[in-house]
């Protein structure tokens, strides 16, 4: 059930401006730090006493997060809203400045075009 861990990563990083800045600047370092220092605490708040012993990412999940590979995350069943929101935070501004409003969102949709008309990978809990 490591898809839970992927969603937890996206949720926690998107909700914290300092983690988000680290994820943009050095994705590999932030993913490694999350796996050891942030993800294993119970729940998603600021708790630092109770641990969840089994939180970990698979190699493919870790690679997708390090690569900012939202297509791979979509195909793994990471929640579409968490994925969209965090990647808009990472890329929308620079795309909009370069190529106009919504250009990042439209490229994102185009990269998923093979899924048009097909049942999407499940995001069920």
């Amino acid at each position, binding site marked *: 059930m490591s898809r*839970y861990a992927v*969603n*937890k990563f996206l*949720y926690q990083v*998107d*909700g914290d*401006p300092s983690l988000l800045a680290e994820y943009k600047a050095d994705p590999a370092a932030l993913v490694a730090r999350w796996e050891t220092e942030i993800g294993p605490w*119970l*729940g*998603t708040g600021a708790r630092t006493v109770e641990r969840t012993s089994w939180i970990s990412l698979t190699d493919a999940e870790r690679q997708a997060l390090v690569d900012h590979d*939202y297509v791979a995350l*979509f195909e793994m069943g990471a*929640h*579409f*809203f*968490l*994925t*969209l*929101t965090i990647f*808009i*935070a990472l890329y*929308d501004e620079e795309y909009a400045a370069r190529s106009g409003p*919504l250009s990042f*969102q*439209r490229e*994102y*949709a*185009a990269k*998923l*075009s*093979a*899924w*048009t008309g097909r*049942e*999407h990978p*499940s*995001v*069920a*809990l």
Partner: protein
Amino acid sequence: MARLSAVLATTHHPFFHKITELTPPEEQPPFAAEWKRKVLAYRETLTAAEPDVLVMVGSDHFHQFFADNYPTFLIGKQARYDATFYNEVREFSMPTYELQGHEDLSGFMFQGLLDRGFDFSISHELKIDHSIICPIITTRPRADLPVVPIYTNIFAPPLPSAKRFYDLGRAIASIIEEWPADVNVAAVGSGHLSLELGGPRMFGEHGPDPEWDLQAIRWLAEGDVDSILEDVTWESMTAAGNATPGFLDLVLMLGIAGPTGAAYVDDLDLFHTREMYMTWYPEGDPR
């Protein structure tokens, strides 16, 4: 006894405020003026009902709730609520709010729901997200009325059925009508028509399934609950867009109104999604 003076069901478009209020007029897109006109006309349908309290129906978009502890149905019971999260301010330029709560009606509603077989979760530290703040911005921007927030899961499957959402709406209406207070209660809820987020059909020239949208508006406007219960399933909704299950909150609002035609129906086809504005007056049209 309290009077259910209006039931409003609307889509929630998080960019309305940014596009029509924060963007200089000369930089606004061509559809902005019509959008604002429609919203102002819709706002009048709530104002005319002279509400004293608002029962607000929405859904948390992974702001406060996550998969470690995700409530299917939840009610807030607080004297005050803070509203909008950091990442909504970041992405949508969403304003923050402090809303007054109504602990008495929240408590009466919570007990009434339990008594009717709806085993709700409850929060005493609920922060409100844009699913409730968007309709505050469009229908009551002064945010001067106490609110009772009800959250549903339309977002993290598996979800309850359309029938369950409709029946929940019926229960909410009956509880409001039993509440021993001489006040007007309006129910305002937001959801979606066809919508895709983080998928191949997002941010197109229209919503992902314009024909489905028109059908869905007809169902609601005519109070055609039989067709909704027959045709609205997880499969049919997600075929129309991965975030289309947000329609279930509009079904819930029809449940509050009852199986009857709406008094006010309007919509606006935009890029990415279609907006919908609908109002019922269970106590009679005050306009």
